[in-house]
């Protein structure tokens, strides 16, 4: 996946000279996850800029660059280090189009490696998607496949709206053949990764492989699980989600971020509002606990795994 992201950046920079990267260590080093590897060498230090260590400064500078017609792609080094830039994000990036009645758009992509599962120490494993998703004016997308890493990142950079591009850290090393000419679904569309008739697991990003694994394991119980990959949290694909839930009648939302006030709560509410008469059971959530992200040696207790997902699916079966 890391290489797919790198290819997406390179191809966008080749296609559009206004695309500029900036962030901490993105130049000579190529980023701590090497997502920008080789880009400074190919496009020069101006287009792949090593900045001072100041996230608000980085994003605020990107705002000004976008105001002058550039398409900045900002790398935040880790999820929890994006918080100093929160004010720029919420007060300016998200609102500029609206504040100026459409006169000033900010086509900024903010790439944020997020989530746990890689044994990172404190402040290196947060899932901050709920903060971003509840901020009007931002698109929030997260790829779970290699093809989406490439396709969604190119679409995000090409978007005239600001996009929070959440990169699931633990999928950086996932492998698949990448066909850069193959089209992926656009931003805002959910994709059914696995059809099934017993229940649907609604998920995104780092939890997709876990859900696919759970669906395999569920076969032993006689359950045939569908798995829906949201890909985009904002805009949210109500239509596809409702269609799948109606056809299956049972749904579990799975994400590793904390549950209270999380994206899963929003999805459960939306599904209930739209599909109440088609539901054979309440929509359940399987999420991380409502705790600060734990130390790496304990993180496996926090992250929803196959067993926790199957327990939830078992709970859905009571009415038969």
């Amino acid at each position, binding site marked *: 996946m890391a290489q797919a992201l790198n290819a997406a950046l390179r191809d966008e920079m080749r296609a559009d000279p206004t695309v500029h990267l900036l962030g901490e260590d993105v130049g000579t080093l190529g980023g701590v996850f090497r997502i920008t590897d080789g880009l400074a060498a190919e496009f020069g230090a101006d287009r792949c800029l090593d900045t001072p260590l100041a996230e608000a400064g980085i994003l605020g500078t990107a705002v000004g660059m976008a105001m002058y017609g550039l398409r900045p792609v900002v790398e935040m080094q880790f999820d929890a280090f994006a918080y100093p830039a929160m004010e720029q994000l919420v007060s300016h990036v998200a609102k500029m*189009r609206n504040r100026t009645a459409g006169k000033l758009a900010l086509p900024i992509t903010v790439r944020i490696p997020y989530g746990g599962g890689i044994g990172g120490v404190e402040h290196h494993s947060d899932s901050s998607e709920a903060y971003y998703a509840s901020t009007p004016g931002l698109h929030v997308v997260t790829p779970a496949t290699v093809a989406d890493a490439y396709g969604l990142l190119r679409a995000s950079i090409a978007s*005239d709206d600001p996009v929070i591009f959440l990169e699931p850290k633990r999928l950086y090393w996932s492998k698949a053949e990448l066909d850069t000419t193959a089209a992926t679904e656009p931003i805002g569309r959910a994709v059914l990764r696995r059809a099934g008739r017993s229940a649907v697991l609604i998920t995104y990003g780092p939890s997709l492989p876990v859900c696919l694994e759970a669906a395999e394991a569920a076969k032993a119980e006689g359950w045939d699980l569908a798995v829906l990959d949201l890909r985009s949290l904002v805009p949210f694909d109500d239509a596809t989600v409702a269609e799948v839930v109606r056809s299956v009648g049972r749904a579990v939302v799975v994400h590793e971020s904390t549950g209270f006030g999380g994206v899963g709560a929003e999805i459960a509410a939306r599904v209930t509002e739209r599909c109440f008469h088609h539901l054979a059971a309440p929509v359940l959530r399987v999420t991380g606990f409502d705790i600060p992200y734990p130390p790496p040696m304990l993180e496996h207790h926090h992250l929803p795994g196959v067993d926790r997902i199957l327990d939830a699916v078992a709970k859905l079966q009571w009415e038969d």
Partner: protein
Amino acid sequence: MTVLDHRPTAPVPPWLPDATGPRTDPAPLLPDDAPYRVLGTPKLAEHDPELLRELYHRLVVGRRYNQQATTLTKQGRLAVYPSSTGQEACEVAAATVLREEDWLFPSYRDTLAVVGRGVDPLAALTLLRGNAHTGYDPVATRTAPLCTPLATQAPHAVGLAHAARLRGDRVVALAMLGDGGTSEGDFHEALNFAAVLNAPVVFLVQNNGYAISVPLTKQSAAPTLAHKAVGYGMPGRLVDGNDAVAVHQVLAEAVERARTGGGPTLVEALTYRLEAHTNADDATRYRVSEEVEAWREHDPVSLLERHLRAAGLLDDAAVARAAEDAEALAATMRAEFHAEPELDALSLFQHVYAEPTPQLREQAEQLAAELAAEAGA
């Protein structure tokens, strides 16, 4: 034994900064010893009389604009107005030193500077009136929206100036801040970025003595705010913010320096806010009238008028013309604000994204239905 005893005694590592490292002599960066002044000095004679009369005219019209806007708040026709009365010299100069292609990044108090850019005086007030966020086209006027979160516009100025330079355009960005705003992190990050990128930016700090109620002594322990430039590696200038000619000159020099590749400058203008923070604030709680009266003696409008008249550069006719134009503007403002603004509720859903999300479409339909029901009832 303490941790300090474990300090390594190894030889000095090879990465210590060499001749290409940080500046070793901060002296060229240090601000002026005293606020730079032109009025009352022989330097006045070096300035173009046309420019001096223009500054005067703009000061007078600006003062009237401030007064009329404040009156409109009392009549409930303007929600709030942070007046720049007493600070007009800074406002006027910020606009007159910029070329059309340059960009201004104002804060909420800088309506006059925005108007000075050529923005329609009424369009500049939509934010404060409450009918729209930004009533003007920022791109067409090269004027960023009035910015409420303190100092957050400063990094925007840096980014824009940096982008312009990358594109080969000789464009300068001027960011305006208050003294309180210099305590915010964004101010410091912007200065540092500007210096590191050698961006063509000028930071103008209007030090009007107070951040709402908090005096400068509780805001900063630096000898002057202009000193803050030194640590970032850019020059700081200190200027009498009520001397319109001095502010104009110092800013013009900083803009020229930026335009010709010399990098950013921090300018501190010493001035005073003669009115309360906004119409909603009671300034008698935190400052004494002697202080206000002392600053009235140093009012930027009368100061300039006095010196220009003494130098034979301003006659009664010019003074009368300025007063007439000021009254005409005030009358236009009264007339315009007498009428209720046209509002479109469904515009709420416009311009959130390039294309509304399905969720926004649904909500727009809901509001449309509510409006239709109201209209039918």
